[in-house]
């Protein structure tokens, strides 16, 4: 977590480690709902919990307000509170990529970030890929090349592919192999995924 985040008064900017350090403190003050600002090492930080706090998230261009415990991940919030179930929980530990969403332009494992830490950022999920009824060229490429079987890993792959192609619009096949190494598929669709990325990179 960068230092700049701490000084922002919007967004929590509080790492889990620091939260643990000060959680004793927060328990000794009367129970409040919502984040409150404390001075920690001379800086203003927002403290949440225990119990539920109001959290505001900007997802696919819309602002959502929910009540959450601070320990809830962004992934679970998207799925259970906002009913955006495209991102899946598979490993719940930053290994498989099934929960990939794009935050401020970067692919992120949404199982590995707390919802409170995602405040103030622009979150994009697979649900925003289609324009009305029109599939995004990457999605079309996944279909054309059968880059999916059960499809459970697919939304994560689509998001990872989008972020990858933004970084590298014209990748080599070798770059595709490593560039999508952060996502796993149990059904074994990698050949289709490679072909899909190559197709989409031409489009």
């Amino acid at each position, binding site marked *: 977590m960068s230092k700049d985040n701490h000084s922002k008064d919007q967004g929590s900017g509080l790492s889990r480690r620091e939260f643990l350090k000060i959680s004793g403190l927060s328990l000794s003050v009367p129970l409040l709902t919502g984040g409150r600002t404390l001075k920690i090492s001379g800086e203003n930080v927002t403290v949440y919990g225990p119990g539920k706090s109001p959290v505001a998230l900007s997802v696919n261009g819309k602002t959502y307000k929910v009540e959450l*415990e601070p*320990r*809830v991940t962004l992934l*679970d919030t998207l*799925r*259970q509170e906002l*009913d*955006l*179930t*495209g*991102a*899946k*929980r*598979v*490993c*719940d*530990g930053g*290994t*498989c990529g*099934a929960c990939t969403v794009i935050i401020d332009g970067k692919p992120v494992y949404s199982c590995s970030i707390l919802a409170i830490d995602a405040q103030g950022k622009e979150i994009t*999920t*697979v*649900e925003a*890929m*289609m324009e009305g009824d029109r*599939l995004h060229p990457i*999605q079309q490429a*996944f*279909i*054309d090349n*059968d880059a*999916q*079987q*059960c*499809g*459970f*890993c*697919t*939304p994560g792959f*689509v998001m990872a592919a989008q972020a990858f192609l933004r970084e590298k619009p014209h990748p080599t096949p070798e770059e*595709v*192999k*490593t560039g*999508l*190494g952060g*996502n*796993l*598929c*149990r*059904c*074994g*669709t*990698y*050949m*289709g*995924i*490679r072909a899909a990325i190559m197709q989409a990179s031409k489009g």
Partner: protein
Amino acid sequence: MPDYRWPEREKRRLIGKRISRVDGPAKVSGKAKYTYDVKRPGMLYGKILRCPYAHAKILSIDASKAERMPGVKAVKVIQDPGTEIFWAGDEIVGVAAVDETTADDAIRSIEVQYEVLPHLVVDSDPSLAGDRLRPSAEEVKGNPERAFEESDVTAEGIYGTPVITHCCMESHGSISEWNEDKLLVHISTQAVSSISDAMAEALKIPAGNVRTKMDHMGGGFGSKFGPDRWGIETARISRLAGGKPVKIMLERDAELTVAGARPSAYARVKVSARKDGTILAWDSESWGTGGIGGGGRPPLPYVFDIPHQRIRHMSIINNIGSARAWRAPNHPQACLITMGALEDLANKLEMDPLDLVLKNIELTGRRSTVYEEEFLKAAELMGWKEKWHPRGDKTKGPVKRGLGLALHTWGGRGHGSNCDLTIHPDGTTDIKLGTQDLGTGTRTVITITAAETLGLPMSSINLMIGDSLFPVSGASGGSTTVGGVSSSTRRAALDALSQLFEKVAPALNAKPGDLEAVKGKIQVRKDPSRSLTWVEACKSLGGTPITVRGQNPGPGRLASSGVGGVQMADVSVDIETGVVKMNRMVAVQDCGLIINPKLAESQCYGGMIMGIGYALYEEKIMDPASGRMLNPNMEFYKLAGNGDIGELVVHMMNSDEHDGRGVIGLGEPPVISPGAAISNAVANAIGVRVPFLPLTPNRVLEALAS
């Protein structure tokens, strides 16, 4: 009576074409709803407290704190004090709460006392098993003793593959809710039609009171046939919570610990031949575990019917939870053991293993000519003759390259399936089957079959699956689904069409038998200018739809069974680090009539990739001291990633001879050979056999050191 056959090849419009799967758009957009995604009104989240010991007796359970916790709606003891527990991870107490965090807290507050009992989790060494060994009777064929004596060359070796898990991306789980005495279950399953019966039996309610639903599922691979104890408990806990929906999806660690294990298999093998490579005798002593229930038994020797053989097998009963079918039960293990032993024999004979298998191809039985053809094709695609070298790559440098091969077989006859097809007077067509789409493309196959038969575009078929209210169709296991549903759908569509022909024949001034359905029209075969559009034809139904039920098995010959395939692997091994790298793999596979080559190839790629996974990375590692799984996560239970698989080449056998056999399932076959082919390629590269999968750097280095 319609002629229940597949249309002639030249006349097929959709069958055999590379058609994209019909649920592709739903899957790439996040719209496909899996059980994991289902949220019912007022739904509670369930969690399960699991036993930390591999073998124990429950002494007491105190869940009072959980019961008092705000937000906790039900606490249910699943196994009572006094019960003996046989594996770590077994279910003890379930709770349901308004959200996951509360349910987690409730689980943590429950106190259980155990009496810990001695356990065994090791399976690779039978000498540690004591009285936990269950030997099967010895089987002898011919006269192995004499045959070994008469042989010129005998190879001996040890081979094995550990317990691995299914690691479905969508973990196991379900949601149960009651409406009076009716139960609605959403569940991730390979068997929509039979889950209701299984739930009803466990809950002692009439089967008709249970409805099971599932739109999409995120992988099963043989592990999701039954409702499982946690699934049944969702219904019981829901009852306690006043009937509210209760959802339990397994956490990843539980998924890997209790929701699926492929039995291990190890064997000491002796196999012999004459100097010219004629294989004479086989002797194997194998062992392995499927946990407390014992394991399957690898069919040894695999595919090759060696004239003289002695086979012994021992099951090790240990405390690791029970086995489940894992894509081609027992075959990958048997293939590894047999093809490994034959490759070792070829090495001793100083023969190219391809020559050895071809020399003995008749031992593979009635499909030997297909295998021969497949091997020759694979050799061509791999460049086998140019690239193969005798064992031990003699080139300079630490990276050694090698080739290996294997062959496999599977049944794949279509399962029992019922398909209800309705043609409405407005021209729309509904199809209902109690089947499910695991990712194999069931929806697509049914739609193609119906549209082809009715002469309609695929978009005009309204297909409904994944509901126990629909006609019973078999479980998706053993590569039986595509054969089953395509056959029942074809029969239904042919029957419906013949009823429609009856109705419209007078209007076309023809006999029903002279009509055909082509390109959205019903026309006279010999005079296509006399025709009705599909919609006009359906209007003549006079307000009464046609509904028929197609069944499999049924009349005609639409499906059969028995396929084979061969695979070849090209690997590089760094003998300094022990790392195995896949360069290329070739699969040549037959599966009868291919409804959709695009999907068939995906099945093959998928099988090969899963095979690379268990060959190189996957192992359920048990801690002998604690009796617990050491890698119940995806960081250390490793699946192959995009960068790990090299280049894959698939060639489907598609001659008239194959096509004429009708549809045969394809899910299992391609996953059987990779372990053996890769193990053989590694031996070819480094000059020594690495006895056990997965071929981790450690094991490779150990083999090199010995």
